[in-house]
């Protein structure tokens, strides 16, 4: 998959831009605050439909402008796809509209049309940071390849909000209503757990393989999925039964605490090297290598699911890594079609580098490759 043209107007600090990136690795270099990350954010927005910075959506629109537009032509295995996102100021907030091949589509239909893996310094906290980060990782990875997953997850979160509101409503809780919500949560939740369990099993294998290539087989990396509730059998029917049972068993406690305590919104992922849990025992370096292996595995599984290499968006992350890890990570992506890498200081460039682009004040200029290499 590769972007042949990106067109942006009134997006972040870009007034108007047409960019026809090369295939291979495109390196975006420039001083701080020039618009390097903004460009990756635009590309990622066309993939996931959301900003990768947990920002207010209205901030995506250039200050003073009424409407932002981001559009790309993407060459995929099955032909050329046009994707566009239009963000309009509406009151205090913003409204988003999605288009595919010129036709207006819903968010659910837009999602995953362009497959991308994003990697930024913040991701280095995936191992030891709060569990919500790891669930978010699973949701983004799975939603891109599986629209049913997206739908089940959106439904689950919506019903969960209703159930929590019902638990917090003053007065006695309506037992039949609580059972109704649990019935809906069990249905959607069982799909989520089944999809996560299958995904994490393959993710763990893939990550262990690349990890072993880098650090040797003795330090075996394993990723374990810990669903809420625990399941013994991964068939959909068995998962549904355990979830139903766990939900009704925790009902009394949930009424007392006035909040939901059971279900995949409390799922966890845990990483271990040679059996030792990384979040507790891993060194900084071990944790970093594990995140690299995780991202490389995410990339490989998305490529398998969609049948072609996804886009790779690396924001500032290479400068966070030492030379060995940098080389190991990039060496593993030999078959990538296109990647975008931002950097302030032109670090040692990956061997697949096709083109270096200079970004300054929301504009792009081609920089001669030779100049970048000798810098």
């Amino acid at each position, binding site marked *: 998959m590769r972007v042949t043209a990106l067109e942006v107007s009134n997006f972040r600090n870009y007034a108007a831009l047409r960019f026809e990136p090369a295939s291979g690795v495109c390196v975006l270099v420039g001083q701080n605050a020039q618009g390097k990350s903004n460009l990756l954010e635009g590309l990622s927005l066309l993939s996931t439909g959301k900003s990768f910075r947990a920002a207010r959506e209205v901030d995506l629109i250039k200050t003073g402008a009424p409407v932002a537009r981001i559009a790309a032509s993407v060459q995929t295995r099955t032909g050329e796809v046009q994707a566009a996102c239009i963000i309009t100021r509406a009151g205090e907030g913003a409204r988003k509209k999605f288009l595919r091949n010129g036709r207006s589509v819903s968010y659910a239909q837009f999602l995953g049309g362009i497959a991308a893996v994003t990697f930024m310094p913040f991701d280095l906290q995936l191992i030891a940071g709060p569990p919500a980060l790891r669930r978010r990782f699973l949701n983004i990875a799975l939603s891109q390849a599986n629209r*049913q997953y997206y*739908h089940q997850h959106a439904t689950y979160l*919506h019903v969960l*909000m*209703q159930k929590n*509101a019902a638990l917090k409503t003053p007065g006695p809780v309506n037992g*039949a*209503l609580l059972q*109704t*919500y649990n019935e809906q949560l069990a249905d959607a939740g069982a799909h989520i757990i089944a999809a996560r369990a299958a995904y994490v099993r393959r993710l763990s294998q893939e990550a262990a393989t690349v990890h072993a290539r880098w650090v040797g087989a003795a330090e075996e990396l394993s990723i374990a999925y810990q669903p809420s509730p625990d399941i013994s059998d991964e068939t959909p029917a068995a998962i549904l039964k355990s979830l139903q049972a766990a939900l009704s068993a925790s009902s009394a406690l949930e009424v007392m605490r006035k909040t939901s305590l059971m279900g995949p919104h409390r799922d966890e992922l845990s990483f271990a090297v040679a059996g030792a849990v990384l979040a507790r025992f891993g060194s900084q370096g071990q944790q970093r290598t594990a995140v690299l292996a995780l991202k490389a595995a995410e990339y490989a599984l998305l490529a398998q699911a969609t049948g072609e290499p996804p886009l790779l968006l690396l924001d500032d992350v290479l400068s966070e890594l030492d030379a060995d890890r940098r080389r190991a990570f990039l060496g593993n992506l030999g078959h990538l079609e296109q990647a975008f890498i931002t950097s302030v200081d032109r670090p040692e460039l990956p061997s697949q580098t096709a083109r270096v682009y200079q970004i300054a004040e929301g504009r792009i200029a081609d920089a001669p490759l030779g100049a970048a290499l000798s810098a």
Partner: protein
Amino acid sequence: MDYLAPPLSALIGELEKLPTIGPKTAARLAFYLLSASRADTAALSRAILDVKDKVRFCSRCYSLTEQDPCALCSDPKRDASVVCVVGEAKDVYAIERTMSYRGRYHVLGGLISPIEGVGVGQLKIKELIDRISAEGIAEIIVATNPNAEGESTALYLARLLTPSGVKVTRLAYGLPIGGDLDYADEVTVARALEGRRTL
């Protein structure tokens, strides 16, 4: 708007309060009304007051009516043993337009949504239960919207009513007629598969 005659700017102000009407449209409508005949404007203002004064909820099915009970509830040709439950009064007209339903209705006045402060007690659910025994209802067709709240409301009603022996059914999810299977989203197709039938 000091330059406008006060009655005119008052009318523009009232029209602007209406949904989907912005200041430009409001001004256009106001100038149009000013140029219309006295009889037409009198008819419009009477019609507006009449919906406020004369339209009320049917005391049986809670749809909108002038006469109580409403025409649907008092029509002897309609099957009183089947009741279609909908969220809003406007949903009654969506089903009536199909001209393929001959039973009666029950309007809940919303869908269960604790987030918005709508609990079971705010809806006409107790009234529905009372009707089942009073009117000898045999089947309840739940026709709430196909979203999470519509689903919760339908499942809640099924949970509540099934033990009383009444048959509770739900509208099927299907593919849009005249559309291409190709273009339907995966979720719609998956739901339609679940609801498939033997030929």
